[in-house]
């Protein structure tokens, strides 16, 4: 047996196995990203072959651009508002669903649905639900004699609409994973604590929460990474980050700069600043989370 294991370790066939997937990523992800580094130092524009080196200009320009600052602010704002709400609600829902009651399994399946709704489809559904003239929520508010909400045309409420949409789409993700974490806590542990006279709150703080830490960190990692790339709802439901630029996230702004303004060099430079920003924000988290994989 030991011999077999050693043979496995030494076997050179492992390079043959790992090479195709690694080469694939190198060719289609790392190589294009590398070429974008070169692009980011040029004044390359879409469709034109000629471009010349402009040094660090593309990297300096964003720091003189209020829309870039705005998009950084909008992105960070959404992360700092959306992620805590989703983690909080997901945690509450998971704790509720961890209790025994009838219909629990059906509900678990129902709460899973938003996970599979493509953000673009939700943006389309949002056209109907958030229609300001009536029909969706405003129609109901009118019926109840309540004031209607300008879901998409007023800056502040548009921000709220984005938050609401994201919370709808991603709270189930937090919920499902935290619930799995809750259910993997050994029952004996909780029993023992109860025998020792621990109160509900003590139980939660001393046992449930510490046992959930890996799960919560994992969820936090994925939610922060995905909220940092928020794109679809502001881009489609709010017409390209509107009203004005109130919901213009970094992805929306870089998309516009690259594919509407055709400033490839600038967009590439902003992408790398963005990448650095993301790495700074989730780097520590990534370092913690990678322990659960290796």
């Amino acid at each position: 047996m030991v011999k077999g294991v050693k043979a496995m370790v030494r076997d050179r066939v492992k390079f043959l196995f790992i090479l195709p997937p690694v080469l694939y990523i190198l060719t289609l992800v790392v190589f294009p990203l590398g070429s974008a580094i070169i692009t980011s130092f040029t004044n390359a524009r879409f469709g034109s072959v000629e471009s010349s080196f402009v040094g660090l200009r593309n990297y300096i320009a964003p720091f003189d651009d209020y829309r870039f600052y705005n998009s950084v602010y909008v992105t960070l704002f959404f992360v700092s508002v959306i992620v805590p709400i989703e983690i909080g609600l997901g945690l509450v829902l998971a704790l509720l669903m961890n209790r025994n009651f009838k219909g629990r399994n059906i509900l678990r399946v129902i709460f899973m649905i938003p996970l599979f709704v493509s953000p673009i489809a939700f943006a389309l559904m949002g056209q109907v639900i958030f229609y300001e003239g009536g029909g969706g929520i405003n129609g109901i508010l009118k019926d109840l004699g309540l004031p209607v909400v300008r879901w998409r045309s007023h800056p502040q409420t548009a921000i709220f609409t984005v938050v609401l949409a994201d919370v709808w789409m991603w709270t189930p993700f937090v919920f499902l994973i935290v619930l799995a974490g809750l259910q993997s806590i050994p029952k004996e542990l909780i029993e023992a604590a109860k025998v020792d006279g621990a109160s509900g709150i003590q139980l939660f703080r001393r046992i449930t929460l510490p046992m959930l830490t890996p799960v919560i960190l994992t969820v936090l990692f994925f939610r922060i990474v995905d909220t940092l790339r928020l794109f679809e709802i502001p881009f489609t439901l709010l017409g390209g980050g509107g009203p004005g630029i109130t919901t213009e996230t970094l992805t929306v702004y870089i998309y516009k700069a690259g594919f509407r303004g055709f400033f490839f060099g600038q967009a590439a430079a902003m992408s790398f600043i963005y990448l650095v920003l993301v790495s700074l924000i989730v780097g520590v988290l990534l370092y913690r989370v990678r322990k659960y994989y290796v």
Partner: protein
Amino acid sequence: MSDNQKRGARVTSKRVNSFVADIVTYLLIAVFSIFFLFPIYWTFITSIKVSADTFTSKFIPFIQFEPTLKGWIEQLQAAENYKALLNSTIIGLASAALATFLGSMAGYTLARFEFRRFFKNSDIISWFLSLRIMPPIALALPFYALMLYFGIIDTLPAVILIHTAFFMPYAVLVTRDAFKSLPKEFEESALVDGSSRIQIFFKIALPLAAPALVATYIIIFAFSWNEFLFAYVLTNKAAVTMPVYIAGTVTTVGVLFDVLSVRAILTILPPILLGFIIQRYLISGLTMGAVKG
């Protein structure tokens, strides 16, 4: 009787507490249910309303409004819907197959072999994991340029190539986990019997891991189906996927809410149905194997 209830019976105050807790639980669950079901329900009833009714808040079919299948029949006859649905299906099937296959090669290697020189297994795993943090827009621009160079903008292969690359890290980490949980004995005895590593991978490891592989395949299919940014950047007419197609719907059909709703449902239905099938593997799939379901 659950454990909870047993203990509640011992002390009366505890019983009252658990009764209150039950009420609060049901109330909160009801609120959550309404929150999550409302958009789906509203879209569904809008899809069976006549256009004029879509601007009203009527929500009980047959009683408040007369349902109609007009929108559905019209949309199911529209060839352009099928084209987008077909494109999404082909892209999903192909990129999920490629990503799962390539991913399982890496996953198997990382589960069964040990790299010691240059880099360790944990380095390779971290590398695949760190790909997950890259903002898609950073890749979208240069990838677009690359596809332009190869002259395959607005073709299915362009989207398949990028979806495979983008979702492969999931497959690597999830299948590694699956292979690790399989017993080594079969493979070792096959090795003693003189099978090659490649034979063992295809004839023993892959079949044994089949359930996890199918689940990975389905999850990546759903990811690919729902992906918007890359598909939007890389296609404009011939190869548009369903999300790209419906994103354009807003400008072409305006406030024809019944049409919007039918198309939204056509888009969300396939991944939802697939999601139900692989419930058991969902948690591992979504967290790249960090949390077991």
